[in-house]
């Protein structure tokens, strides 16, 4: 690569040396009008034929004979400048070249199909520039977009069904979670790999396409909005630029004490009570020897007279002081440290532009898990001749994920939760066993030395059970642009992306999983004492190899014509894509990582389990898979602008996919949009010195979603072959559901863009309404039909949504102080307007997830009405047919909506952020607050069923009703044994457990100092910036009094501090 860079430098310098001296010398300098950088390789021509090019400093010299000269200054990507220079008047002039697309002070929007100047836009876009994008530092490419994007709601960690770091663009457009995600585009095409493969330092800007006029060009996948990531590119004629970034971040371990498990003393008391009830005594006789807790083992010893009551009391007292969270914090959690380095180079000659970037990430999580990433990206644009240009982009990523230590909550016995009084080490730090599968005492001495140690040691096990995921991705794009006529251009683009990932888990012989399997299938000859291992000694190695190959091909015609006052821009094209995913999983037994040896095992025949004698097969994990998703699309987009005042736009697209079992004529689905804009500022009658921009926009269009369950015939999915008949077996994959129609989303968007008093107040205000028709939802179905999931996908009805996206910016220069602030204010409300069937009752509505009820939000929460605790028994009370009732099972199954309590929306109806930055000389301080209002969440509380069967409880146990009168102070029901499951279920879904989610958070605070060569001439480099950034600083106000983070799933994310360095050469 270094040679390549050198070669480019030579070319640039060579191109700069052309002029020689004669009679009159015409000198000048050409710079870019946008950023004032010198432009190299600019062709400067005089009418009589003398010509030259600029050097790396943008300077040129021409030998001329006349005083008056007509100059033509041209460079690809810039508008040709025609000027007349009278040398008698002036020489050494500086010429400003305007880029072809970018108009003065204008933002451009990249849709992935074209680059449109903002003034011609009719749809709704949010553009994140590079500076804003980099205000939050992190490894991921999408994480940085949270909280800074107008119209986009970052989804709380608590709502896990939408995935990690999910974002909702203008609310939910579907109730089907697996088709809920926005479409992500990198440059021209949908990105099909792992988002972690993209180096965020390669991103120049991001466009969010929020309405139909913006997004419908992307067709069937765009109903939830589109995110277009544009990578950094070189520019024609740009001298070499080198930029180096280094970010060193650290985050404290999570606060495990945020979690509120039942107190150890309380848990011990519960266990003593259960022991007195002879709970689980029968398990002592079971041939599988299930484990018991430490408390139970002590009590069993006491019962058998092996230990005195005093000693037991003493042991229990010791246990009651223990807290397993301390062991997790001491032994497993550590400071998280992430290092990120990025180097980018770019430059260009008149006919070629290039960029090269390298990225290195070295992350160590707070559980010592490793993530390493190396990225390399090279882009090149070559103007082959006047008419033909070639683009070539290649990106390579190498990623490595290595497992770390076990997380809080990930260790538990197979028959319950990890009791809070557990310890992983004794006072000397030696690893203590945890009895997860089998009983203490029984397995301690089992096998008379013929078996491997059968105990599990949490402190040691992760060292021997390691998972590694290696990802390599190669992504190459080649594009040809041909100018057929000045107004007509043709482009063909092709991308191939291939991602290889290898996920492997090595369970060494010392690991519990391996020891357990070997022991289970060990046969000891009682006479000879010989040991026969049916699962061989040695390691167990599982690996899954996956290869993803995605190909996209696009052919497009662009027509751009100005005549008179009008201009017409049309594009039309076709796109074909394929995503092929093949996977292969295998397990090797008796694996020797050194010699790559392994031992075949018999998975066909059954062998008696050493523990129970029950005949079982040795586990067999091998499988193969091949998925192939294909799409073809045809699209067209046209915009007509009259007199720079009025713009009309329209777009249409048809998509088809290879969805299986769908009738052919159902495969095609059209999407369309129309839009108009009015640039008031361009009106002759409009004269105001105060206003620099005023534009009104309106658009309407339709987008859609298709659910893969839309099939006309029963389809089945094959499993592996049956070990009995050696023939394949299958299960029903999809029930015939031919009546299902495409889900449609129609969106109307009205917007105004303005800029007054030269930036003192600028921004945009948008109002939109959405109409979602033929919404898909899983509808409860009588299981007598044979559909055991109990749900089928149906077009259940219609919904409406509307909201405001408001972004206000202000910019002030007060002496040397530059102050910028922006306020993002979003509202979104939706409502199900019509349901085709309305048989939702009790349980279905209260179930976690999203309740579907006519007249209420798509994300509504409902609960059972709460009538307090019974003063006599402490039982929770609800309502049945208007009467206070304790008939929980009737309440659960028959509660009608009228009897339920509507809590509110799970998603905030009002949200956004407030950002501000202050710049004084080289110092810059940036801060952002985020806020979410008008939403609710459900908090956890005690579940007595889980307490008894799992020993997992909530600290609310201490607040439970214990005697008459307690009902005045608490809402936590009394503990009753035997546990009544429906009583727990009623309490868990009752109105008393819901909290207001409203909160304000300090999202980040960045401080930086920049040294510029322009200010400090001695600096050997152009600029250097040093910064410190603090992220996820925490809640500064919240509505709930329970001390809960309304967004956290289990434990809130911890604060993160970054030291950043950026150098421009």
């Amino acid at each position, binding site marked *: 690569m270094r040679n390549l860079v050198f070669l480019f430098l030579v070319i640039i310098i060579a191109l700069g040396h052309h002029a020689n001296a004669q009679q009159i010398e015409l000198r000048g300098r050409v710079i870019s009008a946008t950023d004032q950088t010198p432009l190299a390789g600019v062709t400067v021509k005089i009418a009589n034929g003398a010509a030259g090019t600029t050097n790396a400093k943008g300077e040129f010299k021409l030998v001329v004979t006349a005083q008056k000269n007509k100059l033509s200054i041209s460079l690809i990507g810039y508008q040709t400048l025609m000027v007349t220079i009278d040398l008698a008047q002036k020489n050494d002039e500086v010429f400003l070249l305007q880029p072809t697309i970018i108009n003065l002070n204008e933002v451009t929007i990249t849709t992935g199909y074209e680059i449109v100047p903002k003034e011609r836009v009719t749809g709704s876009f949010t553009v994140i520039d590079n500076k804003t994008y980099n205000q939050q530092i992190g490894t991921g490419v999408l994480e940085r977009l949270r909280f800074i994007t107008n119209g986009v709601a970052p989804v709380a960690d608590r709502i896990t069904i939408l995935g990690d770091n999910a974002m909702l663009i203008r609310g939910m457009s579907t109730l089907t979670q697996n088709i809920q995600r926005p479409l992500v585009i990198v440059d021209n095409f949908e990105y099909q790999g792992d988002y972690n493969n993209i180096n965020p330092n390669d991103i120049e800007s991001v466009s969010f396409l929020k309405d139909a006029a913006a997004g419908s060009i992307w067709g069937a996948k765009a109903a939830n909005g589109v995110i277009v990531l544009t990578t950094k590119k070189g520019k024609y004629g740009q001298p070499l630029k080198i930029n180096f970034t280094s970010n060193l971040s650290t985050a404290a371990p999570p606060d495990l004490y945020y979690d509120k498990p039942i107190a150890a003393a309380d848990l011990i008391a519960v266990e003593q009570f259960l022991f007195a*009830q*002879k*709970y689980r*005594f*029968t398990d002592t*006789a*079971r*041939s599988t020897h299930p484990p018991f807790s430490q408390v139970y083992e002590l009590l069993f010893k006491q019962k058998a007279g092996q230990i005195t009551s005093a000693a037991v009391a003493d042991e229990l007292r010791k246990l009651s002081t223990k807290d397993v969270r301390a062991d997790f914090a001491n032994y497993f959690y550590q400071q998280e440290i992430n290092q990120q380095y990025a180097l980018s180079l770019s430059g260009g000659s008149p006919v070629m532009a290039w960029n090269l970037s390298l990225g290195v990430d070295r992350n160590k999580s707070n559980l010592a898990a490793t993530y390493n990433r190396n990225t390399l990206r090279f882009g090149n644009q070559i103007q082959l001749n006047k008419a033909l240009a070639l683009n070539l982009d290649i990106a390579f990523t190498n990623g490595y994920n290595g497992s770390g230590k076990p997380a809080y909550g990930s260790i538990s016995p197979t028959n319950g939760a990890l009791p809070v009084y557990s310890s992983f080490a004794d006072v000397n730090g030696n690893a203590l066993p945890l009895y997860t599968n089998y009983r203490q005492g029984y397995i301690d001495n089992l096998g008379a030395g013929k078996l491997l140690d059968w105990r599990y040691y949490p402190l040691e096990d992760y060292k021997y059970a390691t998972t590694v995921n290696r990802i390599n991705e190669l992504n190459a794009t080649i594009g040809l642009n*041909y100018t057929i006529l000045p107004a*007509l251009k*043709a482009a063909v683009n092709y991308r191939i992306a291939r991602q290889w990932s290898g996920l492997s888990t090595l369970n060494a012989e010392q690991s519990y999983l391996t020891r357990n399997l070997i022991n289970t299938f060990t046969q000891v000859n009682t006479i000879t004492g010989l040991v026969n291992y049916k699962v061989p000694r040695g390691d167990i190695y599982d690996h899954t190899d996956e290869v993803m190959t995605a190909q996209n091909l696009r*052919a497009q*015609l662009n027509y751009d014509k100005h005549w008179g006052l009008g201009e017409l821009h049309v594009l039309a094209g*076709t796109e*074909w894509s394929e995503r092929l995913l093949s996977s292969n999983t295998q397990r090797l037994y008796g694996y020797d990582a050194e010699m790559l040896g392994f031992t075949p095992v018999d998975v066909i025949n*059954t062998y*008696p389990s050493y523990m*129970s*004698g*029950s*005949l*079982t097969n040795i586990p067999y994990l091998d499988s193969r898979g*091949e998925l*192939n*998703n294909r799409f*073809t699309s045809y699209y067209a987009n046209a915009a007509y602008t009259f007199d720079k005042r009025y713009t009309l736009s329209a777009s249409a697209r048809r998509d*088809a996919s*290879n969805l*299986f*079992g769908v009738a*052919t004529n159902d495969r095609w689905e059209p999407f369309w949009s129309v839009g108009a804009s009015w640039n008031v500022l361009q009106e002759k009658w409009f004269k105001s010195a105060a206003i620099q921009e005023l534009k009104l926009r309106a658009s309407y269009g339709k987008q859609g979603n298709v659910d893969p369950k839309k099939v006309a015939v*029963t*389809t*089945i*999915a*094959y499993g592996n072959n*049956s070990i*009995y*008949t050696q*023939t*394949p077996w299958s*299960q*029903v994959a999809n029930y015939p559901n031919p009546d299902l129609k495409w889900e449609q989303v129609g969106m109307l968007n009205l917007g105004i863009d303005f800029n007054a008093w030269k930036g003192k107040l600028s921004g945009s205000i948008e109002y939109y309404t959405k109409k979602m028709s033929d919404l898909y939802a899983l509808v409860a*179905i*009588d*299981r*007598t*039909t*044979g*559909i*055991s999931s109990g749900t089928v996908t149906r077009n259940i009805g219609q919904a409406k949504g509307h909201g405001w996206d408001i972004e206000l910016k202000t910019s002030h220069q007060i002496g040397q102080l530059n102050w910028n602030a922006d306020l993002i204010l979003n509202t979104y409300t939706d409502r199900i307007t019509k349901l085709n069937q309305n*048989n939702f009752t009790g*349980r279905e509505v209260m179930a976690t997830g999203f309740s579907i009820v006519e007249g209420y939000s798509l994300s509504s929460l409902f609960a059972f009405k709460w009538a307090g605790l019974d003063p006599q028994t402490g039982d929770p009370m609800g309502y049945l047919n208007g009467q206070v009732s304790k008939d929980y*099972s009737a309440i659960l*199954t*028959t509660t009608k909506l009228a009897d339920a309590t509507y809590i509110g929306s799970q998603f905030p109806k009002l949200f956004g952020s407030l950002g501000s930055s202050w710049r004084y000389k080289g110092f810059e301080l940036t801060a952002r607050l985020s806020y979410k209002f008008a939403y609710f969440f459900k908090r956890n509380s005690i579940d007595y069923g889980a307490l008894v069967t799992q020993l997992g409880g909530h600290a609310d146990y201490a607040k439970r009703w214990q005697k008459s009168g307690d009902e005045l102070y608490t809402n936590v029901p009394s503990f009753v*044994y*035997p546990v009544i*499951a*429906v009583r727990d279920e009623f309490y868990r879904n009752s109105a008393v457990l819901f909290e207001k989610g409203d909160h304000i958070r300090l999202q980040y605070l960045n401080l930086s100092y920049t040294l510029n060569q322009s200010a400090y001439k001695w600096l050997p480099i152009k600029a250097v910036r040093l910064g410190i950034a603090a992220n996820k600083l925490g809640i500064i106000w919240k509505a709930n009094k329970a001390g809960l983070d309304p967004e956290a799933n289990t434990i809130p994310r911890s604060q993160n501090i970054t030291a950043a360095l950026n150098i421009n050469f």
Partner: protein
Amino acid sequence: MKKWINSFLLISTLALMGCEKFLEEKPNKKLVVPSTVASIQTLLDDYSTLNQKEVTTGISTCDDFTMSTANWLSLDQNNRNLYVWSANNAFVTGAGSPWTTLYANVYKANVVLDRIDDAIDRTTNLTAWGNVKGQALFLRARSYLNLLSIWSLPYDQATSTTDMGVPLRLDVNFNTPSVRASVEVGYQQVLNDLRAAAALLPNYPVHVIRPSKPAAYAFLARAFLTMNKPDSCLKYTALALQLKSNLMDYNASEGINSKAEYPFLRFNPEVIFETYMPYPATLQKGDIDKELYDSYATNDLRKTMYHRSATAVGIFKGTYSGGTFLFNGPATDELYLMKAESLARLEDKEGALTTLNELVLKRFKTGTFVPYTATTVAEVLQMVLLERRKELVFRGLRWMDVRRLNKIGANITMKRQLNGVDYLVKPNELRYALPIPEDIVELTGMPQNYR
């Protein structure tokens, strides 16, 4: 430049034409529209669903075991209720209920029956085609027989046309509402399906994990026995025994490893068709009924090969599944017992005794068995019924037996004593039809069983 436009148009046209072909590729190699006999067969070979998740209701409700109050209290609510034949909340709602399991099997059978007649290679694979169809009919019939024995009253010829049975779903359209058919219609459907299956199934299956002719005959015999029709029961028992009659000698035989923890091997020679139940939570906490345990003679090998002791909780080891699962498929020993019972009911005292002795001989220590003798048919019947209970313990048949026997005057009252409270089901009580899961009643509006 026209050239360029023309070629672009040409390419677009070609693209449109190639498009349908491009989209014909399957999105998932493992997805298939079941259209050949072989591909439809795969649905029935889903053994982990169709053979290994049998419902355990008939165990939890039967009187072959007892439970202490402490153990009963430690059960979850549904199992507590089921154990005392409670009128509500006896089953979990949703995906885990036996109602769901059985109707999912019915649906699978219906999918096969919906596709099989249109199989594209039907004519070239006629034997395989018949086999697949037979398997589906067999699956549907045995699922309905199970459903009827749990959620409808025992068969009674006098009232069967008016007694509420279970909804009969015979096609794949999930939009058809579920309506309860009469008990008579239900049993006729079972018999028709089984007869049709018996005609189509092979004499000997590829593996006993798949049904066969003798399996269909055995189920026909079971169905007629439940309907108290000994002549038909006898007919089908005989037909089944013609094809498969091996009995294992418990002293030593293929299929037996008396030293092993679980002495009976899977797929042993007596197994006609293998299905098994997971070990139910109720039985895990129960002890075998004392009286039943004591009824095994000292030299009866079953006493030690089936049971560890009378109070050995949750470790019944007499299952034919070779492990902790409870075998509930038809086996030859059940055929002998059905034959003996039918003969006795048809007043053939000697025939019944011979058949019974033939079986029991192989269950005693060699040389210790004194053949049963009796003076009256009633005596023989009592012997057969006791042997039936001892031999087929924990195969999920006892509940069915109590139901049918009470219909013909056996006068069996089942009783649980818990916490000083007696829970009883008297003969022919309405509670012999267990409560339909509440969510099903709520969603379909079908009538709940009477109390």
